[in-house]
Every structure is written in structure tokens, then in C-alpha cells.
């Protein structure tokens, strides 16, 4: 694969797919709960990147305020959806981290495996 083909391949959509599975790998391969939460964060970022880059035309302007004639506006729907998702993502991450702190206080570990063993005791 020539370097140009590689550069062409690198686009928001492809990177987001790669990121999504990087996150999934992190979920299955890391035993620490904090890393699981980070992996979920990566997956969410991937989804956001996908939404924002999937249908984006080059040099389009933000879909709000006054538009200049002749310039394409970006599709507002994915942007509206993603600002919602970012807000939700923050809430979810905060709750997950709170749970992690509780888990740590209760079991003295943030390792899934050890926490599981302690739960079954």
C-alpha cells in the first residue's frame, strides 16, 4: 500500500471504526475498572467522531447563525444528536466513576476479578 493510499484511507469514518474496536479490545483485555471506563469513553468518542465525520462536506459552515450564500451548511441533525450524546456521556462516566470509588471502598480493589472473588465470599 502506497503512502498516499494510506493517507486517503485515513478519514474520520475509518478512524472511528478503528477506535471503536480499540475500545472494545480494552474492555476485554484490561482487568482494571478504571481502564474499562476509559475504554467505554473511547468507544463513545468513536461514535461521536463517526456521526460528525460521516456526511460532512468539505468546508461547510456550522448550521447556526447567519449563513453565507453559496456555502454548504453542515447537516444539523448529527450535531444536535452528538451534543446530546456528549452530555449523556459525561453523566454516565460520572456515575461509573462514583461506582468505582464505592467499589474500591467496599472491596479495596478496582480489579474486576478480585472484586468478583470478594463478592462471592
Amino acid at each position, binding site marked *: 500500500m502506497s503512502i498516499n493510499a494510506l493517507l486517503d484511507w485515513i478519514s474520520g469514518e475509518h478512524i472511528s471504526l478503528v477506535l471503536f474496536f480499540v475500545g472494545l479490545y480494552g474492555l476485554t483485555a484490561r482487568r482494571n475498572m478504571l481502564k474499562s471506563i476509559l475504554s467505554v469513553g473511547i468507544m463513545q468518542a468513536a461514535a461521536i467522531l463517526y456521526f460528525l465525520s460521516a456526511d460532512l462536506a468539505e468546508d461547510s459552515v*456550522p448550521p*447556526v*447563525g*447567519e449563513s453565507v450564500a453559496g456555502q454548504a451548511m453542515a447537516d444539523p441533525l448529527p450535531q444536535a444528536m452528538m*451534543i446530546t450524546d*456528549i*452530555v449523556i456521556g*459525561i453523566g454516565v462516566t*460520572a456515575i461509573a*466513576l*462514583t461506582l468505582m*470509588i464505592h467499589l474500591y471502598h467496599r472491596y479495596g480493589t478496582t480489579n474486576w476479578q478480585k472484586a468478583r472473588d470478594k463478592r462471592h465470599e
Partner: protein
Amino acid sequence: MIRMSHDRSLFGRLIGLLYPFMLLLSFYIILNGHASPGGGFQGGAVLATVLISRYLTYPVADFRRKHLQMAEKILFGAILLLPILLLFSRPGWLIAPYDRWYLVAMNVLIGLKVGTGLSIIFYRFAAETR
């Protein structure tokens, strides 16, 4: 964990100088949200950095978190009630969906709510992990 001596360091003073600008920026983003990229959430996030950076330089939670939580609940209620009363119940009855003042009011409410909400989350964590 960032720990600094309780007397204000140079860093703290610099941050102190920045507060007005942070506030200004956040309200600029909130108030222009209906006409430019930005809006309640983005501005609220900047607003929250004011309290967060204050804690980072001066780690004492000397204000009441309870008051902040109360404010957040009231704002949440207002965010639900305003559209219900003005917009949802009878479309186009009182104001048009794109009414500028309505959008500004909602952006302000959301900005304040996000600002208080994020600060509460941060201070909670700060208290938990101390």
C-alpha cells in the same frame, strides 16, 4: 492529586486574575448560543471550570454544596417547566418555536444548570478521594 499550600501561590493568583475572563467567556458562549456555535451546554462547561479551577488552586470547599444542589434542582424544574408552559402545550400559541428570547432564556437556564451540575460532580469526587 494536586496539593498546594493553602496560602495562595503565584499560580493561584494568576487563576484569580483569569476568573472574570472565564465568566465573561462562558456567558458570551451562553448568550450567543442561538446565533452562533455554542450554547447552554458549552457555556455551562466553561462556567464550571471557574469553580473547578478555584478548587485546584485553593482546595477548600468553603461554600455549601447543599446550596448548589438546591439551585441545580430548581434549575432542572425550570428547564422542564418553561418549554411545557410556553411551547409544548399549545404549539404556536404564545411564542413561535424559533423565538429568540425563548432560546436565550433556555440557553441561560441550561448553562447555569450544567455549570452547577458539573461543579457538584467535581466537588463530590474531590470530597470522596481526599
